[in-house]
């Protein structure tokens, strides 16, 4: 345009700057760097992804996709990425993205479970999940077979798989108050816990699986006795009241105790999964098993057997040699008499170890018969004795009565009837009556005594007046002492110089 051309001369000229080489745009480094960084991030991301696994749960309670972690010993090993309902609509399948290098954990017997706050007896676990939220716990399996699909446990395993110790089976007719997680004590030290229990196939027994942790498991040998240490074991018997407890914990939550009898051969530790009998109490556990018990029949014609219960002891000179197994009344049609035959079972070893051990080729049973014959001939008789005045429980005492009329044992009977002596209950009744009479007398005397005592302290009595005087005198004495102390404080020199007239 011509107009503009004319204005051009006014435009100043630019300064000359030495020309720089047009650089080949270095800016291309930037996308290359970006690409490298992107690829590197992608690669590390892919590398950081471990295997994907599925875990089948009973319910999705506490599972949240993207939030719930999988933890092994508190270490993060994966995250739940998806939770969906299984095709059968009864289970929940969680997909978890595991961290890299967890491949080795994922074997056939690896166990998973949801960790949430739980109270099992007195064991409270998973409290930290109240704050951190639930997570999935893992217990590593020992198998070599790889597996990516698991079924979760309903409850966390009681015992971590790698805890040193051994499992044992206990057989018991009833569970008592023990439950899963109930403690096991060895000399009152917590030494393990009940892992699980299940009914025997026949429904007759319960099999209780227990875990005894190291180092206590080495004290379990084939001769070890297990018994229920649940709560307070109170037994009232002819021998009196017995209270046996383990620990406060076991009183509340139940438990099992075990001990190995000190006597007996030193046995090697028991094999894992050895089956033991679970006794009801310690006494039962340590009662020596009755070896070939002999059964005798006792017929008490004159005395009542009220108070004699099965389980009552049979004693020789105060030492139990057996127990009453049965008391059942019987009617003799010929003599028209009621009698209550008592069946007792005695352990010959308790009273006859020595004679049983004498060498000889004679049969033990025959030898026993011979000994019994001799004893009865010398006056061995059974009689009833009151074991406990309070409960009126009876026990069977076997003593020698040299004056007793001679009888002989009829070994053809089974069980053999052992001769008896009339009981001593009449004597006891008499003595009780005496005791009551004495007690009455004592009470009357006490009454008199109290009356006298009352007289002593009533107003205007001699004692009262005297006491009054005594108190007055005491008050006077105290006043004098105070005066003296005051004076001494003002005139300590009086102790040495004596009272001067100036003091007044």
């Amino acid at each position, binding site marked *: 345009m011509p107009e503009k051309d004319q204005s051009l001369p006014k435009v100043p000229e*630019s300064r000359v700057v030495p020309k720089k080489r047009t650089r080949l745009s270095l800016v291309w480094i930037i996308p290359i760097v970006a690409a490298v960084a*992107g690829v590197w991030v992608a690669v590390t991301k892919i590398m950081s992804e471990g295997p994907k696994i599925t875990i089948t749960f009973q319910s999705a309670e506490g599972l949240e996709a993207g939030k719930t*972690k999988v933890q092994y010993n508190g270490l993060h090993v994966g995250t739940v990425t998806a939770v969906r309902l299984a095709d059968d609509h009864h289970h929940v399948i969680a997909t978890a993205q595991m961290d890299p290098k967890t491949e080795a954990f994922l074997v056939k017997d690896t166990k998973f479970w949801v960790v949430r706050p739980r109270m099992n007896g007195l064991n409270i676990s998973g409290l930290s999940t109240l704050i951190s939220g639930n997570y999935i716990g893992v217990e590593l399996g020992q198998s070599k077979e790889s597996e990516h699909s698991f079924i979760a446990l309903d409850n966390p395993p009681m015992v971590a798989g790698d805890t040193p110790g051994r499992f044992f089976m206990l057989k018991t007719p009833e569970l008592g108050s023990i439950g899963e997680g109930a403690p096991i004590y060895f000399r009152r030290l917590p030494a393990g816990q009940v892992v699980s229990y299940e009914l025997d196939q026949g429904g007759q027994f319960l099999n209780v699986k227990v875990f005894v942790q190291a180092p206590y498991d080495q004290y379990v040998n084939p001769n070890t006795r297990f018994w229920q240490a649940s709560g307070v074991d109170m037994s009232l018997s002819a021998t009196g009241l017995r209270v046996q407890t383990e620990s406060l914990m076991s009183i509340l939550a139940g438990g099992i105790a075990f001990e190995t009898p000190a006597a007996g051969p030193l046995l090697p530790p028991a094999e894992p999964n050895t089956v033991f009998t679970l006794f009801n109490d310690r006494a039962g556990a340590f009662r020596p098993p009755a070896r070939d018990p002999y059964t005798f029949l006792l017929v008490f014609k004159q005395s009542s057997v009220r108070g004699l219960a099965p389980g009552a002891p049979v004693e020789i000179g105060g030492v139990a040699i057996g127990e009453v197994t049965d008391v059942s009344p019987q009617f003799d049609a010929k003599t028209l008499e009621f009698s209550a035959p008592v069946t007792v079972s005695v352990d010959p070893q308790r009273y006859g170890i020595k004679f049983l051990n004498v060498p000889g080729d004679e049969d033990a049973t025959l030898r026993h018969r011979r000994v019994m014959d001799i004893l009865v001939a010398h006056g061995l008789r059974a009689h009833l004795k009151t074991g406990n005045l309070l409960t009126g429980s009876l026990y069977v005492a076997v003593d020698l009565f040299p004056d007793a009329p001679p009888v002989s044992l009829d070994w053809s009977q089974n069980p053999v009837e052992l001769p008896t002596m009339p009981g001593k209950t009449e004597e006891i009744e008499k003595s009780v009556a005496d005791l009551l009479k004495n007690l009455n007398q004592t009470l009357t005397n006490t009454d008199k005594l109290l009356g006298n005592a009352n007289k002593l302290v009533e107003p205007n009595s001699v004692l009262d007046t005297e006491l009054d005087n005594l108190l007055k005198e005491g008050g006077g004495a105290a006043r004098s002492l105070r005066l003296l102390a005051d004076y001494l404080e003002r005139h300590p020199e009086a102790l040495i110089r004596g009272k001067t007239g100036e003091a007044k």
Partner: protein
Amino acid sequence: MTALQQGLQSCDTCGLLSRPVPGADEGRCPRCDEELVFRKPASLQRTLAYLIAAAVCYVPANVLPVMTTITASGRESDTILQGVVLLWSPTGWPLSLIVLFASIMIPSAKIVALLYLLITVRRGSIENNRQRIRLYRIVEIIGRWSMVDVFVDTFTVALIQLQPLMSVEPAPGLFFFAAVVVLTMLAVESFDPRLIWDSASSKEIQPEVQYA
């Protein structure tokens, strides 16, 4: 008609029009000493390079988490999109929308818009010049707002350090996101909008060009 056609250079800083010394392409503005060029050097090439870099970074910026929140309940990493979803609630939706626009739509829109401008300039398109320059201006103005996200993140990281209870850490996505914003800004900067008119003025002069 442009200054270039007349052999004149305008200063980017003070707007002074000057004539370059014959034989020398580049000089300094006589008034403000700014480097003078007819057109920004290697404008298309540099813009393209920045754009590609931005596009590459855009993927990890959105896929990777930008922030890790460490609370008593564990670590939680969130990407920008997760943040948008998290904020989306009956009361928080405006905030959610702001994040969605500033952090996801604007950077991607910038990349697409600049790419469109690049392609059209390259092909010597003469159509929609006014729309294109408007597009360029919009991109230039709103581009920096994407930095809001980075800003908020760094603030949060600096402020929320209640150590035992809760703390916030930047996650790798944030660096990529910042890179996207910076790279797109550089791309906008290196693009010379005058190129839009060059192809137009080299052809038949359009009426509106005279006012430009």
